[in-house]
């Protein structure tokens, strides 16, 4: 079986073309870590990071935050042993009043959050139980397949908005007053613009919602979903079991030592699953809410870098190779 002889002849042009790339001769640079490079890099990083950390820590310090856990205190003494029954009983009076003092001056806007603990909004069964299509547009009203087990009423009518998330909407309410004067709570613009404009339709109205088995807050069936900002905030599920959600904003300044009175309608059932409820008032700065973590991290890393740099310098001076 002789091979093809032709290949040997026609091949004068098969010489590979020369280029630095094809011959792998391109100039290459390989960093060699000399003590000079290493030490100066560490010093530069340290010198940049430490000030950044200090600035952000300072910014975080300027934020004023008030946290008040109320789930225990808002149960009347008679029901302390039987909280679940209390919260489930429709007859009981669930109003409760809390007061606290403002430690420092709080400039508007002051954000009101409610904070839940041990509430797993991230459970797969929970997080999947919604129909984005249905929320978006009126014509998808019957689109409830994903919403199990809260897709339809007992009469097989589709629920709008369907799903466990919407069904378990938070339903405590807060009323604020300072020195006997009511504070106005602004509940507009607490949700994301994109959610309001695109994900929740202006033509979708609640229907069959909280009929029969009532989970949480009911919705006014004459207001479209895009206006129901509490729902929109709630439907943006939290990643962790402890989370804060925006309730509203107070657009007045509060002075130090002002005593705030809050009237809470304690409706939401966190007692079943041993969760907690807190009310949070907070101002913001350029780094957002109160958050020391960022500053501490920057300072730590910068500090380590400077420490290493100094160690290397000492090593280099005392015991050079």
């Amino acid at each position: 079986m002789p091979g093809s002889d032709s290949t040997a002849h026609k091949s004068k042009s098969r010489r590979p073309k020369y280029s630095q790339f094809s011959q792998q001769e391109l100039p290459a640079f390989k960093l060699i870590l000399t003590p000079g490079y290493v030490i100066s890099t560490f010093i530069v990083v340290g010198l940049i990071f430490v000030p950044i950390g200090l600035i952000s820590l300072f910014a975080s310090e300027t934020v004023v935050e008030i946290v008040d856990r109320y789930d225990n205190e808002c149960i009347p003494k008679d029901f302390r042993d039987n909280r679940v029954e209390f919260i489930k009983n429709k007859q009981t009076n669930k109003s409760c009043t809390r007061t606290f003092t403002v430690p420092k001056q709080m400039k508007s806007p002051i954000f009101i959050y409610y904070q839940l603990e041990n509430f797993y909004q991230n459970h797969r069964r929970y997080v999947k139980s919604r129909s984005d299509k249905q929320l978006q547009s009126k014509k998808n009203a019957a689109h409830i397949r994903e919403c199990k087990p809260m897709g339809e009423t007992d009469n097989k009518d589709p629920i709008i908005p369907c799903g466990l998330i919407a069904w378990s909407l938070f339903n405590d309410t807060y009323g604020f007053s300072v020195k006997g004067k009511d504070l106005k709570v602004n509940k507009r613009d607490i949700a994301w613009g994109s959610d309001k404009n695109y994900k929740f339709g202006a033509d979708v109205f609640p229907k069959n919602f909280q009929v029969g088995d009532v989970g949480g807050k009911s919705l006014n069936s004459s207001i479209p979903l895009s206006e129901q900002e509490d729902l929109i905030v709630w439907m943006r599920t939290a990643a962790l079991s402890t989370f804060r959600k925006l309730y509203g904003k107070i657009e007045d300044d509060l002075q130090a030592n002002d005593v705030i009175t809050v009237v809470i309608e304690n409706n939401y059932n966190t007692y079943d699953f041993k969760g907690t409820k807190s009310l949070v008032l907070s101002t913001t700065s350029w780094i957002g809410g109160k958050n020391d973590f960022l500053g501490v991290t920057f300072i730590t890393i910068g500090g380590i870098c400077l420490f290493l740099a100094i160690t290397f310098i000492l090593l280099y001076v005392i015991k050079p190779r």
Partner: protein
Amino acid sequence: MTRGRIRAKLRRSQLYTFACLRPHVNETEGSVQGCPRVIYCNQPHMHKKRPLKYCTNYISTTKYNFFSYFPKALFEQFNRVANIYFLIAALLSVTPLSPFSPVSMLLPLAIVVGVSMAKEALEDWRRFMQDKEVNARKVSVHVGNGVFSYKPWEKIQVGDIVKVEKDQFFPADLLFLSSSYEDGICYVETMNLDGETNLKVKRAMEATSPLNEDEAFKEFTGTVKCENPNPSLYTFVGNIEYDRELYAIDPSQILLRDSKLRNTAHVYGSVIFTGHDSKVMQNATTSPSKRSGIEKKMDKIIFILFAILVLISLISSIGFAVKINYQTPQWWYLKPKETDVYFNPVKPLVPGLAHLVTALILYGYLIPISLYVSIEIVKFLQAIFINQDISMYDDESGIPAQARTSNLNEELGQVDTILSDKTGTLTCNQMDFLKCSVAGTAYGVSPSEVELAAAKQMAIDLEEQNREIANAKHKNSGSEIELETVITSNDGNDFKRRIKGFNFEDSRLMDGNWLKEPNVDTLLLFFRILAICHTAIPELNEETGNLTYEAESPDEAAFLVAAREFGFEFYRRTQSSVFIRERYPPKGQPVEREFKILNLLDFTSKRKRMSVIVRDEDGQILLLCKGADSIIFDRLSKNGRMYEEATTKHLNEYGEAGLRTLALAYKQLDESEYSAWNSEFQKAKSSIGADREATLEHVSDMMEKDLILVGATAVEDKLQKGVPQCIDKLAQAGLKIWVLTGDKMETAINIGFACSLLRQGMKQICITALNSDSVGKAAKEAVKDNILMQITNASQMIKLERDPHAAYALIIEGKTLAYALEDDMKHHFLGLAVECASVICCRVSPKQKALVTRLVKEGTGKTTLAIGDGANDVGMIQEADIGIGISGVEGMQAVMASDFSIAQFRFLERLLVVHGHWCYKRIAQMVIIKDFPT
């Protein structure tokens, strides 16, 4: 049978005293029981039905056919652990259990598998086209009534009589019936079988050799009984019943498929083994799919990762089940009373299991499919770099290096053992007459390859010394020296030979100057021995008018060319005479002389010498002999040892220079002495019986003694460019190099020296089998025990060696290897071989090459690389972890079967040391970097 017709000019039977005229042995009837295959020659219709229906001559070397491609190629792909895993993952991701969309799993898998399968398909298609071409070749077949007509190869059946013409390949294994030569010989080139390019003589049976015409096959019938198909190229057991007589068939009467008919107008043969039954095809090994070490290692890593994955998933699903059981009943916002498969606080086991599957998919990113895609892409690019490397491009043949499979790039960097073919790979298969020693005087000044290399090495050493002396300041002088050496080496390489086979340079002998030398008579005799003592045939090249010589071995041809250049041109051979044209320059006119050949004592590897007895024009009878020096020196007469000392010295020098040496001697005979011997010789020749050969040998022995030493020759087996340096560098890099060759042991050892595989001072361990052709079981056992003893002795010797610098070379021959490769012995053999610095296996068949490769690969567990150029290397190329084909002159099979192809052996160094290293390092780094995120 027109005997008066002009046929081939020679009756060769007189030249081949040992081989021919063998009387038919009738005692073989007893051995029929070992011959289950029955063939009715010239009666192909008998083979249409079972049980005599044998396989057709259609061959197929493809891995797949149209229907089996999909299942088989898919199976091949899913042999990879990773692919299987990804397939399962992809299938699971289609189910509702999946936490994300299935496309992200299916698409990469489809790409990876699809590309590999397409590559397979393309390669197989190429093989198919090659098979098709082979199957469609035409050969002349007897169709009845003495008429021959052309048929494609695939239509040939067992029992057919085929007529093969000059320079055609044999279509199947044939029983040689007759040839255009009257005495039924033919010449065969077996390059595709053993890589040797010299011609081999085959001869038909005495009984059938008169059947050398188309007409003669009208009535011819015969019954062959023979062994079943087997891969052994050098054995054949069988007999033929013809004219109610039984004749034994020996291996030299078998013409093997894929060898080529040369120098013979046509031959007739009866088809014995067809298609896949033929010896060549039996030697073929199916091309396995090769996988690189990194891939195998990655498979293991993936197993580990998979175990981790399962563990993580198990933990998470147990946690899930526990949580579902104890906590979620209180989580009213999940509506725990409305259960389904995935959520059921009452029966936590069911959702736990479902979650296990989900978790497996979810955490599946632990196993990086993207890594596989990236590796494929990177390897593809690396292959392009290899193809584009300008320093692996051969200017002469215009062939660049080619990475034919990109799977094994990084494997190149991890090679431990190189198994190399010799002919065509290390050597050019060309002999050059380089030096000679006549009457104790050494002639010939041109240096051999080895000497050049040594000189260069010395120059480099010198330069290094200089550098040490001169400080780093004198950089300029250093580079100057370098420049100089480069220039000199180029000079050496660019030296062009005017005549092929002749590289002799010495003004004392050339152009008739030898007449002025003191030992004119001895010189004359020397040249005559060169010109007369051989078995070659001259062939006139009609275009150029030059003579070329068809010799059994290339060194014989080199001798004849040398003789011609010295002025003794051998130009004609008749049945009884050799004609020499002698030219003495002063006169200018050549003198034609006839030497009558009285007897020819053939060369065998056992005798290691050949002689002719001639009568010159003056009626004087001369015995001219050439042979291995040790043999000749033993047979010198007392007064014939005049030059022994000087010649021995020269021979040692030549040996060190890596040259192949032969000693020449002669003896004058009286008429009476000769006739007395001749009658005895003729008697021995015509004797019948098993001891015939021994008698013949004994008689020859009697004649070949009391010789007078004339001189010695040194022939260089031309190495390919840069081979010794390359081997040296590879050895420095810690690679072991084995040479597997189909050549004779002497040749192989010589080449070992030439390419610095063997060095002076190395201890050679030769392992040879007791010479026994007997088939009996006991004899086999004895041979085996003997070999085992040799091996253990040698191992013992190495163990006891105290000198840490002692190097050993193992030399083993094909027949011995056959025993050494048997299951119970191969580990002893391997153990010994691994201890040796170099290993040379001679006379090995293609199958044995593959077996040795497998033994090394599996025995040592290290990466092996096989390099070869001919069809006989295909097995080993396929078997080794990496197969490299030399895309040179010897056809394309080796290249087709290889993973990489380069044009010259010396490129191996760059391929391994540079590309292999880079590819390995880069791939390894990429795997680490890509694995890091997961």
